[in-house]
C-alpha cells in the first residue's frame, strides 16, 4: 500500500537576512527527516521546544515547503503550489492557540468556513456542519459565540471545522498546550474517536507523554532530526535516551522503572496505571 505521507530527507532552513537582503544567519530547523505514515494510523511526533516538530507539522500542510528533499501527502508533492488546496483539504491542520484559529462569531459559521472556501454547495455545508459538530460533541453550542466557550471546547470546534472539509488526515500541532487538564482530556478523546470511528489518519504533535500512549507509532524529534522511532512501549522503555532529548516518560512508567532498579521484577514497558497495579498484584500472588 502506498504510504499516506512520505517524507524523504526533508530539510528546512530558516534564514535571517540583513537590510541588503544578504543571508546573515541560517537556522536548520529540519535536518533530513524521513517519515512514512500509513493511512488510518495514529502517529505521534514527540519533541521538546525547538526540536523542529512544529516546522515539520507546517510542512505536512504545505504551509512551508522543504528547502531540500521531498514530501508527499496522499501522493502529491507539497512543493508544487498547485497542489496546495488539495493537500490542505485532505490533510487538515489544528493549531495550538484556540482563539487564533476561529474565524467567525458563531460556532456553526466557523465550522462552515472551510467548506465555504472549497466551494461546497449550501445544503451540503449545513449537512457537514451538523455532522462534524455532532462528531466532536459540540452540536448544542452551534449558535453560540466561541468567546464564551472553554479552551477545550474551542479546540473541538476547530477540529470540527477541519472535519467539515472531509479530510483523510488531521494534523494537530500541540493542540493541548494551552488547555487545562480537563480540556486536554476531552480533545485527546475526540481525536482518538475520530481515528477509530471515522478512520481518519491522525498526526499528533506534542510534548505531553501521556497523550502518545494511545498512538500506533511514535517518532521522537530532536534538533531537527528523527532520533527515535517505534511503538509507545518501545520508546518508553528507553527512558535514558528520552531524557537526552529533554523529554520525560509518563509517571507510571517512571515508577515502574524505579521499581525495576530496586530489583522488583515487572515488565519494562508499562504505560498505564492499571498495568502497573496488575503487574504488582501478579507479583504478590506468586510470593
Amino acid at each position, binding site marked *: 500500500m502506498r504510504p499516506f505521507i512520505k517524507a524523504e530527507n526533508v530539510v528546512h532552513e530558516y534564514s535571517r537576512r540583513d537590510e541588503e537582503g544578504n543571508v546573515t544567519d541560517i537556522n536548520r530547523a529540519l535536518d533530513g527527516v524521513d517519515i512514512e505514515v500509513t493511512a488510518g494510523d495514529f502517529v505521534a511526533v514527540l519533541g521538546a521546544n525547538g526540536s523542529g516538530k512544529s516546522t515539520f507539522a507546517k510542512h505536512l500542510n504545505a504551509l512551508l515547503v522543504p528547502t531540500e528533499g521531498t514530501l508527499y501527502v496522499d501522493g502529491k508533492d507539497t512543493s508544487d503550489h498547485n497542489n496546495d488546496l488539495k493537500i490542505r483539504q485532505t490533510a487538515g491542520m489544528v493549531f495550538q492557540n484556540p482563539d487564533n484559529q476561529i474565524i*467567525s462569531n458563531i460556532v456553526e459559521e466557523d465550522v462552515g*468556513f472551510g467548506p465555504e472556501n*472549497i466551494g461546497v454547495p449550501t445544503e451540503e455545508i449545513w449537512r457537514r456542519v451538523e455532522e462534524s459538530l455532532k462528531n466532536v460533541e459540540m452540536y448544542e453550542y452551534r449558535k453560540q459565540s466561541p468567546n464564551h466557550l472553554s479552551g477545550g471546547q474551542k479546540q473541538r470546534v476547530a477540529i470540527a471545522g477541519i472535519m467539515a472539509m472531509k479530510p483523510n488526515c488531521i494534523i494537530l500541532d500541540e493542540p493541548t498546550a494551552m488547555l487545562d487538564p480537563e480540556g486536554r482530556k476531552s480533545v485527546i478523546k475526540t481525536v482518538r474517536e475520530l481515528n477509530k470511528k471515522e478512520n481518519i489518519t491522525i498526526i499528533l504533535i506534542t510534548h505531553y507523554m501521556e497523550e502518545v500512549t494511545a498512538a500506533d507509532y511514535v517518532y521522537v524529534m530532536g534538533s531537527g532530526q528523527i532520533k527515535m522511532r517505534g511503538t509507545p512501549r518501545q520508546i518508553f522503555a528507553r527512558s535514558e535516551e528520552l531524557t537526552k532529548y529533554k523529554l520525560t516518560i509518563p509517571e507510571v512508567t517512571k515508577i515502574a522503572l524505579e521499581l525495576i532498579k530496586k530489583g522488583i521484577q515487572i515488565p519494562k514497558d508499562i504505560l498505564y496505571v492499571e498495568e502497573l497495579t496488575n503487574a504488582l498484584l501478579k507479583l504478590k500472588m506468586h510470593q
Partner: protein
Amino acid sequence: MLRDITIGQYYASESVIHRLDPRVKVVATFVYIISLFCFDQLSGYIIAALFFGCMVKLSKVPFKFITRGIKPIIFMLIFTAALNLLWTSGEHILIKAGFITITVEGVKKMVFMALRLIFLIIGSSLMTLTTTPNQLTDAIESLFKPLNKVKVPVHEIAMMMSIALRFIPILVEETDKIMKAQMARGADFESGNIIQRVKNMVPIFIPLFVSAARRASDLALAMDARCYHGGEGRTKMKPLKYKKPDIIAYLVMFGYICIIITAGKFLPI
C-alpha cells in the same frame, strides 16, 4: 471593567424587522436618512416621526434602547443647536442683547436641525439594534459587489470587517490583562494630567500591538490551512435571499419617500 463594552449593540428578538434581509435594512436606513433632507416644514417631521414610530413598534425593541443612541451626541446636538440659534438672521427679532440676536427663524431652524440629527441617529441605531454584525457585513459585501468591476476587493474588505468584530472582545480582554499586569508592577493609570495619563498608556499599547500582530499572523496561517483563497469560487453557508416580506419592505420604503417628497413640495407648514 472593559468587558462591558458592546459594539454594534444587537437587541435579540423575533420580529418582522429582525427577520428582514439585512440588505433591505441597510438600504431602508439610507433612504430614511435621505428623506430627512427632503422637506423643511413641520408636517414632514410629523410624517417621519410617525413612520419611525411604526417601525420601532414592529421591531419590538424597547424605546429606551433606541434613545440611548442619542446620549453620545448630546454635546454635538447642543453645539449645532446653539450655532443655528445665534447665526441665523431673520426679520422677526425675538431678543436683542448686545451682539446676541435671536430671531424667530433662528429658533425654528434650531429645532428642525436638532430634530433632523436625532432622527438620523435613532434611525441608524434601529438598524444596528435589529441586525447582527455578521449580517451587516454580509449585506455590505452583497450591496457593494458591483464595485468588484472597478477592482475594489469587496469580499476581502467584508471579511476583514467580520474578523475585526470577532477579535474585539479578545483584544479587550487582553488589554484588561495587560493593564492588570502593569498595575501589579506599580503602573498608575489614574493620576496625573491628561498628557501624563496618555503617556502612561504607552506600556499598554505596545504589548497590545505586538500581540495583535502575532494573532493576525497566526490567524492568517489558520485561514490558509482551511483553504481560504479569497472570494473566488467561494460558496456561502448562509446566502442572502430576498423573500416576500423583503419586497414588501422595499415597496413600503418607496411609498414613504414618495409621500415625504410630495408633502415637502405641497404642504404649507
